[in-house]
């Protein structure tokens, strides 16, 4: 049992702010770290103390475990919260924390090491009678080996990094011709993201649903509770875009079954703290296959929070400081449905290529059941150094239909100018008939034709907009500062409208 007086947040962006809020409500002091790109970020400014990590690359900053531990020691922190991504599933970092008498708010280094090894986890699951998708039991030496196994189980297959998550390093291969390039690309991405290039092959299910179980385990897995499932089938580039809880296809009996699997696995790896067991549901048979363990807080944790009325981050901190769970299974009483849309700085009409820029205008939505997790503000520079998540928009309602309508209303209220985002895509997803009927799969984006409708909507010929454009352009009402003096001495002056003046003649 440790009391925490001060906790270091080893992350950035919305999740750093999320952890900061949890610490405040627990009356624990917060210490932030910031890269040079994040010197004026919201968590940097709002934390009780903030320490600079020189540089902008992840390796120099948020992946620099030795320096983070040094800062935590220097600032008398009792614990470190790693958020998601970066060092959150790094067993070496967890070990370094332990060696320096810092509580790592997450699983033990040993549990992290096992959980992070996807192949080892699959074997553990198989040994306990939990179905898994066919896979190569050992990391592949070369592309030929990959090709051999793929032909054995039949294309399409997925090439996957044996370590790490977040969709990085995953490549779909539908024929032997493509396997060499995919193999190399997968290894490169895995090396760049996780520092480990081991890759394996897994059978690709056709149109599966991605369903995962949230668990919370006490120290050493003495007690493990589950908080129901999330469905995260709508993905792009093997990364989740829309998440909901509960899943429309999971009934009470199925929930009980997959939760039991999840708890069995948690105990098998002596898991502690919050974690997620991912499954794929075969669309033909309804069978669930264990996929992997996510040994951290997930990006999509808010949907579980809204449905259960439980603060998962505060619960993580409680487990870390007292070893015990702050509630029991019988206290978990889910109600209603929550849907999360990830607002990314990506262009859905250009294969989700990320983009950067300055947030010039921002208006966040609100209303009953609506929550926005974000560190955005007007004037923020979205840089290319970290991931493309700008905000998470989460809507809760008593039913799926009410949650969906609230999410749609909120998406129409959400205004963001400066980078191209996934907002227009989400607006179309929410009104796509298969989504409305809860018919989801990991092929949703390509099957539903939603991208085509996003493109049509962007081209929509709205007379009001043409009328406004005619007024602005023809009357030259638009004025930019005549002599923009650059440099530090003056603030940029916003453009403005003016009366009179002629842009072209005739009016």
């Amino acid at each position, binding site marked *: 049992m440790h009391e925490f007086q001060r906790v270091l947040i080893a992350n950035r962006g919305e999740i750093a702010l999320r952890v900061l809020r949890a610490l405040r409500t627990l009356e624990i002091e917060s210490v932030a770290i910031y890269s040079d790109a994040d010197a004026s970020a919201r968590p940097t400014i709002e934390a009780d103390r903030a320490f600079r990590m020189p540089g902008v690359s992840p390796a120099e900053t948020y992946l620099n475990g030795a320096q983070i531990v040094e800062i935590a020691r220097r600032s008398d922190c009792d614990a470190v919260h790693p958020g998601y991504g970066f060092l959150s599933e790094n067993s070496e970092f967890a070990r370094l924390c332990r060696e320096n008498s810092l509580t790592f708010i997450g699983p033990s280094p040993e549990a992290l090491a096992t959980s992070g090894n996807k192949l080892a986890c699959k074997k553990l699951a198989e040994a306990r009678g939990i179905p898994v998708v066919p896979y190569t039991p050992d990391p592949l030496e070369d592309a030929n080996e990959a090709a051999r196994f793929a032909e054995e189980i039949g294309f399409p297959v997925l090439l996957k990094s044996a370590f790490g998550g977040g969709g990085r390093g995953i490549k779909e291969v539908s024929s032997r011709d493509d396997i060499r390039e995919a193999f190399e690309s997968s290894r490169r991405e895995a090396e760049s993201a996780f520092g480990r290039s081991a890759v394996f092959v897994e059978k690709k299910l056709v149109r599966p649903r991605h369903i995962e179980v949230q668990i919370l385990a006490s120290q050493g897995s003495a007690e493990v509770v589950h908080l129901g499932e999330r469905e995260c089938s709508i993905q792009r580039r093997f990364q989740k875009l829309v998440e909901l809880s509960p899943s429309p296809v999971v009934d009470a009996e199925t929930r009980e079954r997959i939760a039991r699997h999840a708890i069995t696995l948690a105990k098998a790896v002596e898991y502690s703290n919050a974690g997620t067991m991912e499954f794929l549901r075969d669309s033909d048979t309804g069978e669930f296959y264990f996929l992997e363990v996510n040994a951290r807080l997930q990006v999509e944790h808010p949907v579980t929070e809204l449905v259960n009325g439980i603060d998962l981050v505060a619960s993580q901190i409680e487990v870390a400081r007292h070893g015990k769970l702050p509630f029991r299974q019988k206290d978990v009483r889910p109600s209603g449905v929550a849907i999360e849309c990830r607002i990314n700085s990506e262009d859905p009409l250009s294969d989700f290529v990320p*983009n950067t820029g300055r947030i010039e205008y921002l208006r966040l939505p609100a209303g009953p059941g609506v929550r926005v997790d974000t560190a955005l503000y007007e004037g923020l520079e979205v840089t290319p150094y970290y991931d493309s998540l700008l905000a998470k928009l989460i809507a809760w309602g008593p039913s799926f239909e009410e949650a969906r309508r609230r999410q749609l209303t909120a998406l129409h209220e959400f205004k963001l100018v400066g980078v191209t985002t996934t907002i227009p895509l989400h607006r179309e997803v929410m009104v796509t008939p298969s989504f409305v009927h809860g018919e989801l799969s990991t092929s949703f984006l390509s099957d539903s034709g939603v991208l085509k409708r996003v493109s049509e909507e962007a081209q*929509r010929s709205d*007379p*009001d907009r043409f009328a406004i454009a*005619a007024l*602005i352009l023809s009357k030259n009402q638009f004025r930019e500062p005549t002599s923009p003096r650059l440099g530090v001495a003056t603030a940029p002056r916003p453009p403005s409208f003016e009366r009179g003046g002629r842009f072209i003649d005739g009016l």
Partner: protein
Amino acid sequence: MDYEITIGGRSEKVTLSRSAGEPEQYEFQGAAWDQPLRVTVVRREPSQLVLSIAERIYSVRPFRRSPGGAEFLVNGELVSAALVAKGGPKAAGAGVASVNELVVSHFPAKVVRILVANGARVKAGETLLILESMKMETHVDAPRECTVLELFVAEGEMVNRGAKLTRLDFG
């Protein structure tokens, strides 16, 4: 129809004429629409115009000039509009394909691989180079069959948004 206006790749021929008297009002007609629209200036501030069109109220905020036009916010949504001058040439930026095409990076990125050499003949869809940004790889593919005229970057290089990557010849 007095002007041709382009928004989001669509062009429309339109007319706008000032009505007499106060409040400031205009009549708008477009070849694509049956009914004229009345545009009323409800309020005029330096940083926003409040307009009423058929009982819909719009807050219009200036954003920046763009080639041949301007960008502005309409109720918080960005609108990029360009004016095609009467009888004149099409405004720049309308996406006209040229024989020689410069490929630029749309985002700051690291060049992780270059798969073609100067002078190479490549097929449609063939990957030219691979960029990494925000931890994801992006393949830059040839849109059609072409020849690589020039490569401006090297593997491992960091490029800014707008940086020239390669020049292709579609002739």
